[in-house]
């Protein structure tokens, strides 16, 4: 009797400890909350590899439920992909990232499982599922501490791979080829000696006058390239204009100051000015120290250039390149010293300030075309004509889109809807 009682007590103690250590869990195998309860996965198309997309489509009534996605790799290691996603988000991506570059390895088999729940997923429950011993091989309904979790079956093996060609960019390839032909056509036309016209660009005719007047007054010219890098096209365009302007400067035998923000831009500007002075037959006038570095600090640069303007009092100031908030600080200071100012940038947010503070402003594409305008070489003019033909293409495309939408949505005609959708899809890259 005593033995039995002791044994019973031992059992009781054991069972209590069992309860306190393990939370209550009820498992109903193969039960699902609705027909077709599953998640699917696929390799993310058109990427460089290391990415799998997991998707699900549950009834709308479950939109406010949470979904947690787990993963098992072919070696049997479990991991969490994402916890407590809103069911309405419909998809999640399992990708390698900067922090974890080998999270998804190309060529490895991965199996995914989803956990659907009304409440956020319980951490202990999750740990139990991903623990090596238990795994989560079984799908069904788990009732854990009175909360219900629906666990999907594992997906088939999903393998991530890198693509050799981004299919979604086919429209770009086609346009690139067509546009190359347009450019080649015009470049050939230019080569064959056909004269190409370029319209007047306000401000560029004033370059000669600006340089001339500065020379008369015995003042230098200042050329500000803004705060871009050599990898920025506006900065490159600014450098090509610098080449034409410094040629004029050499012809007038005056001085050009180029305060720079980026050291590579400074070095390139030195090359540009040197080449222009040599072409103008005055390499002796070139002084490397006139193209100087200021600092790679936006407002430090603005302060330095402002100070230089106040002291050197240039007769003409060119602001050509990439400008941000410092644009108006520079342009207003230039205005206050009475310099002729010719500005140009592609930053639409800064253009209004240039328009207000400068004598002439080259807007966007005008600035890109300026170097061609200043040195009307046939080949260069050919490229401008090609740009114009592309503009016509774009206008036609926009008008076609608009007309299609009138028939599609104004008159509700099905075929036009399809055509409109086709056009819209081709434009999405």
């Amino acid at each position, binding site marked *: 009797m005593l033995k039995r009682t002791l044994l019973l007590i031992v059992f009781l103690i054991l069972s209590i400890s069992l309860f306190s250590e393990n939370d209550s869990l009820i498992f109903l195998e193969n039960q699902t909350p609705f027909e077709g309860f599953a998640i699917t996965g696929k390799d993310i198309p058109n990427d460089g590899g290391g990415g799998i997309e997991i998707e699900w489509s549950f009834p709308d009534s479950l939109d406010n439920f949470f979904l947690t996605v787990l993963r098992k790799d072919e070696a049997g290691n479990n991991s969490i992909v994402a916890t407590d996603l809103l069911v309405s988000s419909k998809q999640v991506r399992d990708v390698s990232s900067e922090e974890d570059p080998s999270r998804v390895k190309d060529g490895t088999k991965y199996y995914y499982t989803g956990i659907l729940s009304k409440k956020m997923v319980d951490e202990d429950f999750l740990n139990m599922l991903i623990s090596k011993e238990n795994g989560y091989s079984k799908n069904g309904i788990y009732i854990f501490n009175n909360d219900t979790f629906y666990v999907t079956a594992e997906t088939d093996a999903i393998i991530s791979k890198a693509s050799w060609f981004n299919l979604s960019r086919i*429209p*770009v390839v086609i*346009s*690139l080829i067509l546009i190359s032909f347009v450019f080649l056509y015009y470049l050939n036309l230019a080569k064959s000696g056909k004269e190409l*016209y*370029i*319209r007047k*660009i306000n401000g560029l005719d004033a370059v000669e006058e600006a340089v001339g007047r500065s020379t008369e007054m015995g003042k230098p010219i200042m050329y500000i390239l803004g705060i871009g*890098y*050599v*990898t920025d*096209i506006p900065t*490159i365009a600014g450098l090509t204009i610098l080449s034409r302007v410094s040629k004029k400067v050499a012809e007038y035998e005056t001085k050009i100051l180029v305060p720079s923000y980026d050291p*590579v831009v400074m*070095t*390139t500007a030195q*090359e540009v000015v040197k080449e222009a002075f040599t072409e103008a037959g005055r390499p002796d006038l070139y002084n490397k120290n006139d193209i100087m570095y*200021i*600092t*790679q*600090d936006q*407002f*430090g640069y603005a*302060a*330095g250039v*402002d*100070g230089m303007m*106040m002291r050197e009092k240039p007769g003409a100031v060119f602001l050509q390149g990439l400008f941000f908030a410092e644009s108006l600080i520079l342009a207003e200071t230039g205005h206050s010293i009475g310099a002729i100012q010719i500005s140009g940038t592609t930053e*639409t*947010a800064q*253009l*209004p*300030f240039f*328009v207000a503070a400068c004598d002439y402003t080259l*807007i*966007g*594409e*005008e600035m890109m*075309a300026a170097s061609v305008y200043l040195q009307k070489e046939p080949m260069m003019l050919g490229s*401008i*004509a090609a*740009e*114009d033909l592309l*503009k016509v293409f*774009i*206008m036609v*495309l*926009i*008008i076609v*889109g*608009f007309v299609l*939408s*009138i028939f599609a*949505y*104004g008159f509700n005609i099905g075929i036009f809807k399809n055509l409109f959708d086709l*056009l*819209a899809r081709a*434009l*999405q*890259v």
Partner: protein
Amino acid sequence: MAIATNFWIWIAALLTLAIYSFLYKDNPFYKFAEYLLVGISIGYGISVYWHNTIITKVYNPLVYDKNFLVLIPLLLGLLMFSRFFKNVSYLSRIPIAFVVGAGTGLSVPSSFEFLFKQVYATMPLKLDFGSLIIVVGVISTLVYFFFSLEHKGFVGRVSRVGITFIMVAFGAAFGYTIMARVSLFIGRIQFLLSDWLGIIK
């Protein structure tokens, strides 16, 4: 609140006033602040470069990851130093040619992407007065940028409409920015009156 006793706050406040003195005219105080900012910021820039470039992008990949690809930009960077020597200074063209090539090359597809996105965004997804205005505005602005046609007659009139759109856009951007700029000034005044002088809380 009382006037600040913190040495650093005083420095910041005096430098702030020195910059503002430029609004009156160029003067020694502004010059001091200007030269100091240029000097310090380039010193700071060097340190940032040392940390972010030399250590993070060259030393670590080379020593720890054995990533020898880094030797290419390292060599290109060193070629820039050929400018210190007159008889080999032409070698610095190689890194320049490289970066210009990279910049222009990258811009070609990204320009295309941008073109596609802009044209797509102009597709009217609903028919109303606004989308008609947008189509007219986009097309007339594009006509303004036509270079190979003289802006006379019909083209001239359309490009005139384009310029009108451009001016409205510039005015809008101008008006949109004014208040943001004023608030920057208010921020500095707040610093002077509260952090430094302790007049307001």
